[in-house]
């Protein structure tokens, strides 16, 4: 290959990569603009709102700085070597001086990494200790989260509340810390609880009890999802954590503790609920439905979403969900109920009374 060709290729490569870089930048900017953080916040791990996630973020900056520095040093050496020591026509036909190695240099570039590793280890160990071995204050809210294929069950044993998919926790003000301590269990396969802005992942493993904790500093809805592959619908096993002000949280707990609302206008739908397979999996307080395979529906309408966050909790979605769950979440364990249109409407009407 002649030098002409070499030049040509280098120019082409440089141009192609230049164009790609510009294209990337434009598209990235466009993407950032179109994303609307208000309706559906970006679960960015560098935008934490809770102590564990904040310690991890601070720690990650430290790790990023060190690795960035190493990157710069090594890449400069590499670029320098590639540019400086390329074969030139001037020296053709000659071999460079043959060098076998140098004990000193090799010792130096062994010990410096060892020191860096040592520092990184110490820094990491302290963060691990701080997050994992945090003491539970008396004011903590305790929640048992149980992973199911493909939804979340939340039990507040001290408050007597059972809900699904949307976790409600009080905001934790540094002066009066009310962190939430979660006990993580699984009913079937492995899952992982991950709300990036609140804490790192902790798995939910059958026949094993795990723990994690969060203390959100700011109210709002935080999203996340199951982060351990758990079967067909792993992709739509979404998580929503609603961080409420203390008053809102108390009101929510109060509302959840109420028995199910029984509106006579929806008694037809209730009869459908109680006489079909619904009750095998779902519970509604005060009815003969006590199943635990599916989410507790006693206060279904207090939730914004259905099917573990896969769809908004609207009339149409509810109806579709019972008629043909595969349209929303193919492969979920909710069977198509094969109800007549009349029964379906009655049932939806009934469910819509469960506030």
């Amino acid at each position, binding site marked *: 290959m002649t030098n002409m060709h070499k030049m040509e290729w280098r120019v082409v490569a440089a141009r192609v990569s230049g164009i790609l870089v510009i294209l990337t930048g434009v598209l990235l900017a466009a993407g950032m603009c179109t994303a609307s953080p208000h309706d559906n916040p970006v679960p960015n791990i560098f935008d934490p709102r809770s102590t564990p996630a904040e310690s991890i973020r*601070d720690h990650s900056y430290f790790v990023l700085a060190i690795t960035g520095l190493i990157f710069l040093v090594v890449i400069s050496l590499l670029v320098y070597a590639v540019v400086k020591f390329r074969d030139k026509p001037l020296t053709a*036909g000659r071999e460079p001086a043959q060098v076998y190695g140098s*004990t000193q240099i090799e010792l130096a570039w062994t*010990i410096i990494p060892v020191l860096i590793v040592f520092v990184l280890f110490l820094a990491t160990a302290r963060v691990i200790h701080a997050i994992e071995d*945090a003491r539970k204050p008396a004011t903590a809210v305790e929640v048992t989260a149980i992973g199911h294929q493909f939804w979340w069950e939340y039990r507040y044993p001290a408050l007597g509340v059972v809900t699904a998919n949307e976790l409600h926790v009080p905001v934790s003000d540094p002066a009066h810390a009310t962190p939430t301590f979660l006990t993580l269990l699984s009913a079937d396969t492995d899952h992982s609880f991950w709300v990036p802005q609140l804490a790192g992942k902790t798995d939910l493993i059958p026949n094993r009890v795990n723990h994690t904790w969060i203390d959100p500093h700011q109210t709002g809805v935080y999203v996340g999802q199951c982060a351990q592959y758990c079967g067909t619908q792993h992709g739509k096993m979404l998580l929503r954590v609603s961080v409420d002000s203390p008053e809102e949280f108390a009101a929510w707990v109060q509302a959840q503790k109420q028995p199910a609302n029984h509106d006579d206008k929806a008694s037809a739908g209730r009869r459908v609920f109680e006489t079909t397979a619904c009750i095998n999996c779902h519970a509604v307080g005060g009815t003969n439905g006590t199943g635990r395979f599916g989410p507790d529906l006693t206060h279904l309408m207090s939730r914004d979403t259905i099917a573990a966050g896969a769809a908004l909790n609207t009339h149409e979605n509810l109806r579709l969900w019972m008629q043909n769950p595969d349209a929303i979440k193919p492969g979920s364990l909710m069977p198509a109920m094969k109800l007549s249109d009349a029964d379906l409407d009655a049932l939806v009407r009934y469910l819509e009374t469960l506030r």
Partner: protein
Amino acid sequence: MAMLLPTEHIEQSSRVPREIEVPASTAWPLVLALGFTLMFAGLLTSASVSVLGAVLAIAGCVGWFREVFPHEHEEIVQVVPEDLSVTTERRLVERLPVAPEQVRAWLPLETYPISAGVKGGLAGSVAMAVLACLYGLLKTGSIWYPINLLAAVVYAPSEVPSAAELNSFHGGIFLIAVLLHLVTSTLVGLLYGAMLPMFAHRPIVLGGLIGPVLWSGLLYSIMGILNPTLGSHIDWVWFVASQVAFGVVAGIVVMRQSRVPTRENVPFALRAGIEAPGVMPPRENGEKRP
């Protein structure tokens, strides 16, 4: 440009035989593998597949056995004449400018032995510890103060100890501190041993002053992350002073070691019999070359 080396063959042609025995081709390993796989495949499909697999596997075993017993079956391959000349376009080999008169640079090993670095590090660690404890005595009247601060690297933010706790003795904490101190000191000492000869003009200035000051600057920027407790209590003047004490003592000890290089001080790699000719670092020479 190619230069043919007239007689440089791997081996004299007189020793090349006319024919060579190589292991004979055989289908039995394939039959056995197929049988074996089918035996397992039967678990996935139907038992009859396993039966077929077992038959094939047994046939394969017997066939294979007969290939190697009592003697391995071989076949004869005629040797084809090959052009085995070894050529190169690059006949000239450049020399390191530092030793142009030698055929190949084989410079004397002038590195400090590994033990020098370790000794320097340990000596430096003592100097540093003495200074730090002196600081503790002057500041709070307790030598345990700096030791506890050093070990505070393991404390979580929620467990930051009180002033009284910082001034008293804790066995576990003491062990952690000693361990940290010794490991770090030894490693830095080793680094001194390795790097001082590369910058041999003013080793004590470099190792005793510039190194510790750079090192302290680095720590200054990361102390808040690495050891927040220490970071909040630290007296940087004393800290830098103790680092310099380490550097000066370690540097002096390392330099003194080099004056009497003995066989025992040869690095482990050489003592282990691994051939590692010590050559000057290439980076210094690469740049000087035209």
